[in-house]
């Protein structure tokens, strides 16, 4: 899932300082699960900001909302009036949320309250670690199910760099060397021969460096004929 983290309150406060009527919108999917932008976080942020304002004698009006998935316009349309009615929308979703609002209501300001971080896995309650960077061309079947691009600091494709020392990464001794892990895993699976194989330079065009990516599913797209006017879900 997408893992995000709330910006420091001070930063948020400065960001929204000039505006009077602020709508804070959370999201019930990824960011709710990673405890960053669910209903609770939204309410707490609003409350904390109110306390801050109270202390500093500033007056601002807040509205706290949560939508199912902020990255989809249909869900956002449900709270349209609230958005239109405010000076500023503070999005407590991943930046997709903020951008979707922005794209749908270009004349409205939609600011992010979260820093969108990683495609992460919850290792335990409250700990998320990055395991994918979305390069668009997955190879983990050859690397024992461990992604060297996400989990190696240097995204090495052919074995560890020289800096790997007893299973740790030279860039940050806290984290494990991805290639050490790959070796161990392959050994476990009796597929060590795979590590010998030299993989050719990766075609990065599928990744971000090929510019902004758009995935299209032709059979799912509605033809001009099918399309109705602004169709809402419910």
């Amino acid at each position, binding site marked *: 899932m997408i893992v995000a983290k709330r910006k*420091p*309150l*001070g930063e948020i*406060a400065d960001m929204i300082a000039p505006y009077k009527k602020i709508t804070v919108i959370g999201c019930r999917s990824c960011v709710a699960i990673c405890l960053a932008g669910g209903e*609770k976080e939204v*309410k*707490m942020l609003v*409350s*904390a*900001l*109110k*306390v*801050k304002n*109270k*202390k500093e*004698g500033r007056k601002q009006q807040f509205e706290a909302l949560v939508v199912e998935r902020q990255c989809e316009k249909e869900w956002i349309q449900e709270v349209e009036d609230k958005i239109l009615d405010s000076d500023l929308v503070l999005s407590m979703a991943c930046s997709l949320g903020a951008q979707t609002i922005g794209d749908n209501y270009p004349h409205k300001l939609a600011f992010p309250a979260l820093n969108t971080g990683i495609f992460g896995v919850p290792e335990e309650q409250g700990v998320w670690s990055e395991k994918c960077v979305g390069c668009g061309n997955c190879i983990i079947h050859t690397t024992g199910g461990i992604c060297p691009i996400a989990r190696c600091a240097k995204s090495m494709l052919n074995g560890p760099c020289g800096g790997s020392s007893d299973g740790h990464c030279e860039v940050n001794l806290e984290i494990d060397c991805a290639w050490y892990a790959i070796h161990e895993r392959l050994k476990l699976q009796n597929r060590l021969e795979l590590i010998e194989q030299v993989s050719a330079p990766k075609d990065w065009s599928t990744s971000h460096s090929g510019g902004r990516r758009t995935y299209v599913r032709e059979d799912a797209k509605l033809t001009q004929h099918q399309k109705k006017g602004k169709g809402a879900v419910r």
Partner: protein
Amino acid sequence: MTPRRPKIVGFCCERHGLDSPVAAAKSGITYDASVRIIDVPCTGRVDGLHILKALEDGADAVFVLGCLEKNCYYDTGSIEGRKRVEHVRSMLEEAGIEKERVEMFNTSSTMTWRFPEIVSKMCDVVNRLGPLGKEGDEQ
């Protein structure tokens, strides 16, 4: 009207948390009246939101009082409570509000002196830091 007195909210768990004011009362110890006791089944029930809302609604300081860790009736409740309090404290710090205004305390039913001590401690904090925000601007 009289100069604004400190307003302190104390979320107390129904076990030792509420036993300790009772114990103090029964031993004839008096303490400042500005504390408002809100009873919750367990400090694990206390949500950061409750604490922030209290500050928002006019409290100058908030404390959470539960059983001693490892002696919580619900086993892990007071540990959970402490984590919530710590989170709120860090939020306050980020927002530039004195985090001393929010505290977690643990107690047991034998500490007659504990509750009065806590109250006076929080009162001192407020007297030192002054009220949170100006009088009457509670949303």
